[in-house]
């Protein structure tokens, strides 16, 4: 399913690289003791260091280093036991130091890999170039006063991990899958909450195009600060088409920074290369090189939780799920945990079907997250138990499920109260079968004439007569015996 853009003279493919900024989960900032809690009153979480008072010095927060190592391990990446913090110099009112402390040519994490789970069940390996630690900037508020801008420094100095991919993606779908997988990994690791809507995960999209079959890398444009998976995909679609249009028109794509306008679904030029910042990176003389030994990496590796890829393998190998189902279930940690509770002692495939079709449809309809599901995993598991021991049929189970959604009740209680227990008494079923055959002389003739599909009509009659409670297997068997006999 390659993504090809038809140009005037040839077909084009898109080349995509992503830079994802993940806000590190830590109690205090990267180089100061100020709190990182979201949503506090403006300028209440600012230390002397964050405000860049004269003579203040940064001191590295060990927790942020551990989180970066953990994330690097989650990305199957090389961890550099020696890395260097550098100053990235530029002036802005919400950047008190006049430089951002970041990492340039010696990042804490080197090359790694992220595996994309595509909708058709296949996978794609995308290279990670690096991950580095850096400070976030503050916030400029331009809408509080007609003449002045206000500055909130609460976010100043909060730790970010910037993860840079190789230019390995070839379609908006792959970029979307990359972002979802990245979010999944950091959430499993608990190194970033992955909330793009709150800005704790943000993305810069680098796009270029080239004729299909070519291996060159053409000039790219970078679209900054895209804050949802959907917007990233839209930005790529727009950029790819725009760039093909530029080449078709005989022009050249210029290297520039662009902004995504979510309302119009398009990107706009922000500044060209001529106006690009010269960041004048140099090693921060206030900080020693960041050095740790292999033992720290080993210790963190030993404490890593099961990650989505491992979990997916387990679902395929021990539960016998399809790669697609397994991928869907592990993508979100809450879903995986929910699924495993449902599948406890049940048929894992049946459990997967129920979670992926019935539960997901219900959650989508109600617009709630799985963590807030009106049907608990334990109750859903019980429901599957009732099917397994033939207390109810699969069909009745769907009705019970509806009642569970409305009431939040235990399925056993619902079955008992509503008298939904399956009829397995062969005498009662046989009576209903006989009544159906007697009522449908025409249908009997058709069946015996070779129309086997008409059997469904008889089943329907029996179910109607038993309010759907007759055991479907028994009904089928009896009908066939009698009609064939």
């Amino acid at each position, binding site marked *: 399913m390659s993504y090809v853009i038809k140009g005037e003279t040839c077909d084009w493919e898109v080349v995509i690289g992503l830079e994802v900024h993940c806000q590190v989960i830590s109690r205090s900032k990267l180089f100061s003791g100020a709190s990182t809690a979201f949503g506090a009153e403006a300028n209440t979480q600012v230390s002397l260091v964050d405000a860049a008072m004269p003579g203040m010095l940064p*001191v590295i927060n060990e927790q942020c280093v551990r989180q970066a190592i953990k994330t690097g391990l989650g990305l199957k990446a090389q961890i550099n036991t020696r890395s260097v913090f550098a100053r990235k110099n530029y002036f802005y009112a919400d950047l008190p130091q*006049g430089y951002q402390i970041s990492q340039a040519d010696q990042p804490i994490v080197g090359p790694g890999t992220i595996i994309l789970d595509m909708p058709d069940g296949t996978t794609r390996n995308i290279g990670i170039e690096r991950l580095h630690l850096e400070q976030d900037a503050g916030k400029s508020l331009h809408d509080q006063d007609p003449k002045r801008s206000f500055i909130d420094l609460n976010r100043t100095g909060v730790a970010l991990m910037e993860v840079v991919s190789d230019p390995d993606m070839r379609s908006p779908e792959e970029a979307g899958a990359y972002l979802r997988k990245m979010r999944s990994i950091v959430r499993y690791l608990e190194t970033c909450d992955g909330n793009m809507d709150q800005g704790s995960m943000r993305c810069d999209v680098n796009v270029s195009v080239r004729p299909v079959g070519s291996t060159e890398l053409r000039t790219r444009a970078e679209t900054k600060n895209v804050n949802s998976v959907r917007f990233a995909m839209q930005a790529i679609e727009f950029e790819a088409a725009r760039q093909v249009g530029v080449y078709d028109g005989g022009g050249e794509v210029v290297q520039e920074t662009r902004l995504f306008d979510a309302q119009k679904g398009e990107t706009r030029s922000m500044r060209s290369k001529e106006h690009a910042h010269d960041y004048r990176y140099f090693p921060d003389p206030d900080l020693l090189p960041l050095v740790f030994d292999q033992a720290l990496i080993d210790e963190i590796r030993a404490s890593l939780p099961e990650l989505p890829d491992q979990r997916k393998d387990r679902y395929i190998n021990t539960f016998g799920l399809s790669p697609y189902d397994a991928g869907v279930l592990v993508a979100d940690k809450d879903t995986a945990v929910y699924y495993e509770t449902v599948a406890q002692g049940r048929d894992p495939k049946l459990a997967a079907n129920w979670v992926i079709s019935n539960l997901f449809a219900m959650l989508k309809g109600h617009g709630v997250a799985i963590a807030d599901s009106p049907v608990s995993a334990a109750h859903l598991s019980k429901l599957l138990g009732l099917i397994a021991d033939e207390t109810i049929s699969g069909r009745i189970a769907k009705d019970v499920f509806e009642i569970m959604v409305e009431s939040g009740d235990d399925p056993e209680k619902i079955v008992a109260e509503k008298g939904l227990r399956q009829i397995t008494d062969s005498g009662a079923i046989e009576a209903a079968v006989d009544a159906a055959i007697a009522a449908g002389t025409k249908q009997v003739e058709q069946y015996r004439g070779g129309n086997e599909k008409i059997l469904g009509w008889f089943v329907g009659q029996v179910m109607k007569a038993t309010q759907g409670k007759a055991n479907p297997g028994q009904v089928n068997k009896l009908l066939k015996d009698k009609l064939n006999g």
Partner: protein
Amino acid sequence: MTKLTDLTIAGARDGLNNSDFSATELAEAYIQAIDAGGDLNAYITATPDVALDRARASDDRRAKDAPLGAMDGIPIAMKDLFCTEGVLTTAGSHILDGFVPPYESTVSANLRSAGAVMLGKTNLDEFAMGSANITSYFGPVKNPWKAQSGPLVGKDLVPGGSSGGSAAAVAGGLAMAATGTDTGGSIRQPASFCGIVGLKPTYGRCSRWGVVAFASSLDQAGPMTRTVQDAAIMLGAMAGHDPKDSTSAPVAVPDFEAALNGDVKGLTIGVPKEYKMDAMDPEIQALWDQGIAWLQAAGCTIKEVSLPHTKYALAAYYIVAPAEASANLARYDGVRYGLRVAGDSLDDMYMNTRGEGFGDEVQRRILIGTYALSSGYYDAYYIKAQKVRTLIANDFKTAFEKVDAILTPTAPSAAFALGERQDDPLAMYLNDVFTVPTSLAGLPGISLPAGLNGAGLPLGLQVIGRAFDEATVLNVAGALETAACFHALPGTDKGAAS
């Protein structure tokens, strides 16, 4: 009895312990001297109320027989580069207009906890950038020394820089001792010009936390005193590991005063041949030869050593220091504190504020540093300079395999007249030719007054030591001090005060 304002720290400690006078009397004597000595312009802000409060507290401690140590009750001046809680801190710049820090630098806090009494904040070159104390927004400092003969007679002389206010205060009787900071020679060169002792400790010995930054990889605080012993006492109170400064060294602070035993017999002293420059002032050469002879007489072995990359030191320094400064000074943007000169846009406000707030020398160094770090020039300038820096450090390392300390002149000349060399930044930068290599290597260096030139102006010798071996540096300096018998005071003939 010696005037209270002529005492050394060691002498005052004895006097205080013997109840010959109180810390309050000491402080009052200095407060009067500061009032009377305003012509030197050594202080930007005098803090008599703070001084008297702390002096009284010190007297209370002594009355309870619980003094805090050698510095308790000692009146000192603080270079106005150290942030002091509740006291205006300027860095000699207009851009910090009205800035009163809500915090105290680690070094000044250490001195305060040791009982030292702060008399005020001393003048300095703007952001410690200068070698003559002529770049301060608060005006130049005058050297208390006057030429007795020759062309400089009757002229006001510079005190050296950047710690010129501290040096002038200590030499001129306006403080018993003072803090300084040294980036390329800013403690040692003014100490030499003003006839006092100035010690730049090993990089990492004293915390930089709360010291307004000039060049982070070079800045180091140190004592400026009247004797080597005083420097040992005061350094002990300033130094120590500080977790708030990542570059502060986690090493123990020895008892420097106790280690000062005057015994240098058997030490090997290096004399670097590359420091013998063409066109060297013969009086400086003579003093250097004299220093060598004194140490030989004290039982040292003298050995010529080679520091082959010395000639590149000044050039490397004037890349590295401005590069760091260009980033360190970016925070003075008019947004949060200090001066703000309004403009029609954010960029205009930046330009107006920084254009008015920074003086010429600071702007010059920001431009040099910005240029050196720019894309396309970074490798040729900054990276090259860092390589030179490593080579210079290796030069010293090799030399210190053969010698215990190195003896050099502190500065290539004595104090010069105010207004001289003012329009020639390169000539001004040459003041630091003997002190900059030590700074680049992060090593300790001390300047002690060793004699007077023909015009009656003091000249200093520099002793350089291994990293964190201030004890040996002090000891060698002590031996030279004893031999030099330097008791001259500004405005007097050599030896007249002894």
